[in-house]
Structure formats: C-alpha cells, structure tokens
C-alpha cells in the first residue's frame, strides 16, 4: 500500500494525501478487528454515578461487577464469549442517565444494562429499556416503582433492596427487638422520603400499628429538635429514619441535645460516607438495613470474592475497606444473574435474555444462593428475609443480631 503514496502527484494538496492515509489506516484497523471477531465479547452496560456525591457507590458497583466478570471470563465466559463491562457516568442526573443508556444500547449494542444508583435516574431509564427490549438490572436504587413499573413487557429486574420491602422489614425488626408499638417517622423531604412514607403507611396498616407521627426534615436543616420533640410528645417509643448521611447525622445530634435516645431503625441512607464522624458517638445507636457485610463468617463465595477484591485493588486491605459493601455485593450478584440469564437464553437478543431471567434455576451469589429468583410477577431477587441489620462501630459497618 505504501507504494501508492509515492504515486500521488507532488502537486496535489496535502489534505488529500492526509485523507488517503487516514483511509488506509482505517482499512488496516478494520481488518485487524475482523481478525478478533472469533471471541467477540458480550457487552454489559453500566450506567451509574461515577462522579459527584455518589461516586464512591458507583465505584463499588464497578468493582463488584468487574470481579464477577473476571471470574466468569476466567472460566471461559458466557456462550463461549467473554463478558465486557462498558461504563458511563450519569452524574446522578436522570437526563444524562437516559442519554448514556441510549448510547450504550444503540452504539455499543450492550446485551444487558446494569444501572440505577439513584431512584430518579433509574425511573427515567425504565421506559426506554422496556421500549427497546433490553434487560435492565438494578444493583442499588430501592424505589418500589422501578421494578413495579406497570409496563406490559417488563424488562427491569433488581438485585437490591426495595423501599416497600425495607419498610416492612424495619417495622418487623423494631417490633421484634424493641417491642415498638408507636413508632415515630422522621423522613427526608424529597421523593425518596415520600416513597417510604407510603411504604411505612402500608406496612403499618397491615400490622395494625398507629404511628406517633410523621415528620419531615430538609437536607440542609441544622436543627431537627422541633420535629423530634413533636414525635416525643406524641409518645413515640422508637424512630424510623429515612435520610442520607448528612441530615441523618443532624437527627442523631438533635436527639443528643434533647438527651432522648429511643431505638432508631433506619433505611440504608446513613450507610454511605462518614456517618460516625458527622453524628458523633451516638451514631452507633442507629440500626440500619443492608444486603451484605464482608465482616464475620463468610460463605465460600464471600471468601472467594474478598480474596479477589484484595488481589485486584491494593487499597482493599480487609472487609473495612470495602465501602459501601452493598454496592460491591449487589453488583457482583447482578452480573452473576445476568450471565445465568444469557446462558439460559442461548443467545443475546433482548426478549430471549429476558425470558432467560425467568428460566434461571440456581445461581451461587454473595448475598445468597438464588433459586428461581424471578417470575413474571416477581422481578425483585431479594426480599426482607435476605436483608441484614447493621450499625456503625467507628468507621466500620458491622452486623447486629438478626
């Protein structure tokens, strides 16, 4: 080919020369790519917050998924093809999440999509995934409506906690361990708080429990004493907390000031970041839900994954460095479930893989062994029996009695 370059008349423009050179380079590149076609990877898309406030959680999901993919590829991949993770950042922004999803599906031609750290982002992606018939599996976002989205053809699955289920679990836990009869609800004033208010009301109606009150706080509130005083006066014997680390810490500090320490059972918002640093020593009074912990006696899968994480990521010295653990565990199990579904489908087209999810018999995961995890009416692989209860001890999240 090099001969042709010299044949070009010197008088011809340089730009033409450059164009030809580019064309030649492209041709060479295409030829090489064709040579690699034999082991064409099956692409799995990941849309999550990889920057900003939730970046650490996004990184945890990436790590869990990566470990699972490497394990699968070491055993020969799926359908004889290796899996490949293609990541895109949604910056916790629903619009950006949809754009990233479109790009992953239409250009990268991913077989399945993992995503949804934030419930609003996941909810924005759901209709698109259902429309283009690409399975969308949630490793984090807990909004009930994500999987119960009402679409006639539902392509959305979840390997994570779900608000309604968490709310039922929190009530059951408080009744069992704290003999709670009149819980007070203290919820962040946003759609996530709203979703749980609904969930708690349903759960309490079924259990025939009357709440002492429902109070809201803003993400920026300095002082939550007034709200908590109302609950105290109304005779609350326990508190159910829904909020992220910052405002959750303000709740604990306000309780300190009131010298009132009722049992606090919380959704997992407080688990991210530096809860103990922000809330002080009373942080350990908050019991919160998780799906997995790398502390304590690990199953064989747990030991294997912990070893793999330590080998791949030098910053992980022990269980304490895997934060947030739920991100890693949920994402690991998510990939395992997706791989099993593709294996069952025998091919990579969306509807076949979707039916593959229903056909899964048994998958060894971190959180549990999944036996027929999905049916046409049940798109959530986890339920309240699978949750574990934890609290902070210093910077570590450690399990407490179930």
């Amino acid at each position, binding site marked *: 080919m090099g001969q042709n370059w010299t044949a070009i008349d010197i008088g011809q423009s340089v730009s033409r020369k450059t164009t030809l050179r580019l064309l030649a380079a492209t041709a060479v590149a295409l030829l090489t790519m064709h040579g690699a076609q034999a082991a064409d990877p099956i692409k799995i898309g990941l849309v999550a917050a990889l920057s*900003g406030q939730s970046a650490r959680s996004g990184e945890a999901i990436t790590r869990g998924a990566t470990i699972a993919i490497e394990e699968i590829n070491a055993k020969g991949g799926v359908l004889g093809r290796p899996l490949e993770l293609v990541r895109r950042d949604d910056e916790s922004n629903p619009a950006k999440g949809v754009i990233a999803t479109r790009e992953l599906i239409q250009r990268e031609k991913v077989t399945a999509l993992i995503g949804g750290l934030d419930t609003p982002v996941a909810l924005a992606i759901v209709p698109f995934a259902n429309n283009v018939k690409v399975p969308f599996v949630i490793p984090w976002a807990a909004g009930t409506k994500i999987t119960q989205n009402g679409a006639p053809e539902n392509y959305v699955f979840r390997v994570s906690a779900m608000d309604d289920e968490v709310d039922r679990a929190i009530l059951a836990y408080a009744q069992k361990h704290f003999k709670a009869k009149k819980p007070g609800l203290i919820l962040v004033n946003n759609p996530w708080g709203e979703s749980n208010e609904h969930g708690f009301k349903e759960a309490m109606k079924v259990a025939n429990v009357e709440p002492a009150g429902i*109070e809201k706080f803003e993400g*920026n509130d300095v002082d939550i004493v007034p709200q908590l*005083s109302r609950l105290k006066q109304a005779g609350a014997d326990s508190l159910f907390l829904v909020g992220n680390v910052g405002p959750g810490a303000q709740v604990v500090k306000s309780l300190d000031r009131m*010298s009132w320490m009722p049992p606090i059972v919380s959704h997992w918002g407080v688990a991210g970041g530096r809860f103990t640093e922000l809330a002080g020593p009373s942080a350990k009074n908050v019991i919160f839900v998780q799906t997995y912990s790398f502390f304590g006696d690990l199953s064989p899968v747990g030991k294997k994954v912990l070893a793999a994480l330590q080998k791949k990521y030098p910053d992980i010295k022990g269980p304490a460095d895997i934060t947030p653990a739920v991100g890693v565990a949920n994402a690991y199990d998510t990939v395992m479930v997706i791989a099993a579904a593709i294996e069952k489908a025998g091919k990579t087209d969306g509807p076949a893989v979707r039916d593959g999810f229903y056909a899964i018999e048994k998958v060894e995961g971190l959180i549990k062994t999944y036996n027929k995890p999905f049916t046409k009416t049940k798109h959530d692989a986890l339920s309240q029996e699978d949750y574990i209860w934890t609290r902070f001890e210093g910077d570590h999240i450690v399990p407490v009695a179930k």
Partner: protein
Amino acid sequence: MSLLPAILTGLALGSMYGLLALGFHVTYAVSGTVNFSQGSSMTLGAVAGYFFLVLWGWSAAFGIPAVLLICALYGLMIERFAVRPFVARGSDNWLMATVAVGIIVDNLMLFVFGKEPRAFPSSLAVKPIQIVEGAGVYPLQLVIPVVGLLLAAGLHVFTRYTRHGVGMLAVVQNPGAAKLMGIDVSRIIAASYAVSAVLAGIAALLIAPLFNVASDMGTLFGIKAFAAAIIGGLGSAWGVMLAGLCLGLIEVFATTYFGSVYTQIITFASVIVILVVMPHGLLGRAGVKKV
C-alpha cells in the same frame, strides 16, 4: 415541645440567619448594593476553616484570623470585579454578577472540598447544657446570639460615633458631596464588602460545628439570611438582627405547632405578610429621594 425550649431553639437558629444577614446590611447601607452570593462567602469561610483548623490543625489564634483574612480578600475581589465595573456604568448588572460569582465559588468549593459533608468539631459543641428538660443547647448556640447582637451593636456605634463611620453615612447620603469633602468613596465601599464577607466568615465558623461543612451549606442559609435582611429593613443593623431572630422563631413555632410539613409554607408566607404590613421592614425607614 413546650414554650421555653421552642424559644431557645428559635433564637439560636434565628441568630445564625441574623449574623449572615448583617453582611447584606453593611454593603447596602454604604453603597446601595449587596453581594447576593453571601451564602457562598459563608461556604468559603467554612471550607477555609475546615482546611486550616481541622485538616492542618492550626491553632485558633492563627487559623481564625487567616479564615477572616481570606474572606476579606474575597469581599474586596467581589466589589472590584463584580460590582464596581457595573455601578460605574450606572447599570444594575451587579445583581447577576454577584449571583454568578456565588455559583462559581460554590463549584470551586466542590472541586476543592468534594461533595461529601465533613464534621467540624468544636469544644463548644460537644456537651449540651440542659437549661430545661428536653431542650439541651450546645454552649455555641448561646454564643451565636451574643456575637450577633454584639456585632450589630458594634456596627451601630461605628456608623454613628466614629469618624470613619460618619464618613460612611456621608457616602450613603451623597457620594458626590462626600467625595468633594475629601472622603475616599470607592475605598469605603470596598471596605464595606470586605466587612460583609468577614461577617459571613464569622457566621461560618460559628455555624459549621453545629452543622457540617459541605460545599452547598451556604445556599439555603443565604436565601433565609436575605429574607431576614429584607424583613429587617436593609438599612438597619438592629432591624436585620431582629428579623433574623423572628425568622428563626417563626420557623421553630411553625414546626412545633403545625408540623414540619408546613414549616416552609408558613415561614415564607409570614415573610410576605410582614412585608405587606411593613413595606420598609421592621426597623427600616422609607428612603427619601430628593430631586
């Protein structure tokens, strides 16, 4: 919550708004302009404080003046680059320019500090004092109103009884004449912006231990402080401080007696009602423009 604890909580909260709102008053009284990014000045102070006092462990005697110096420099820059060029042209675009600077600063703080909130420990916010049962307050919460009232009093005395203060008043009344009398008008206005940012820095150092340090901590505070400044009457230091306290009390009473669902609605509805009844704010006077 019974009456006394509610009042204590409200006063502590309100004095935070008042303290920040004094910054709006200082520049308005001198130049008729305000720095709309006062909340961001507070964030800047808190983040600088976090680095100096918490992360690098400087002593308070050294760290606090350093924080206030940074705030003062920032105030001077705001005036020089976001206010003066527009005022000189007789344009009101400083409004947007100061808002824009605030957004830039917020985002810079995000880069420098990250999005994760961090604790700002203080020995004055460890053990609550139980004044009445169930209404513990940190000593710091009692310090804030005292500092706020002292600063308001200080500003009042300064503008009424000192040479520089009277010079400032002259600038307010008639910049042209003040200039002819040998008063350096632009320097006084620049100084008022520095003072305004320093007040935000003081507020930041006092509020951060009760709250957390976060890159967006100043936003909501800035808005509420502006509401306090307007209710109080921008021209009066006492009025601004008083309005801050009222706003805090309204907020806490709304939450206590009606529930937190209604807090924001009641608080901001009250702001409107107060302004309808008293258009110049609690202690503000109608500006008379002589032609």
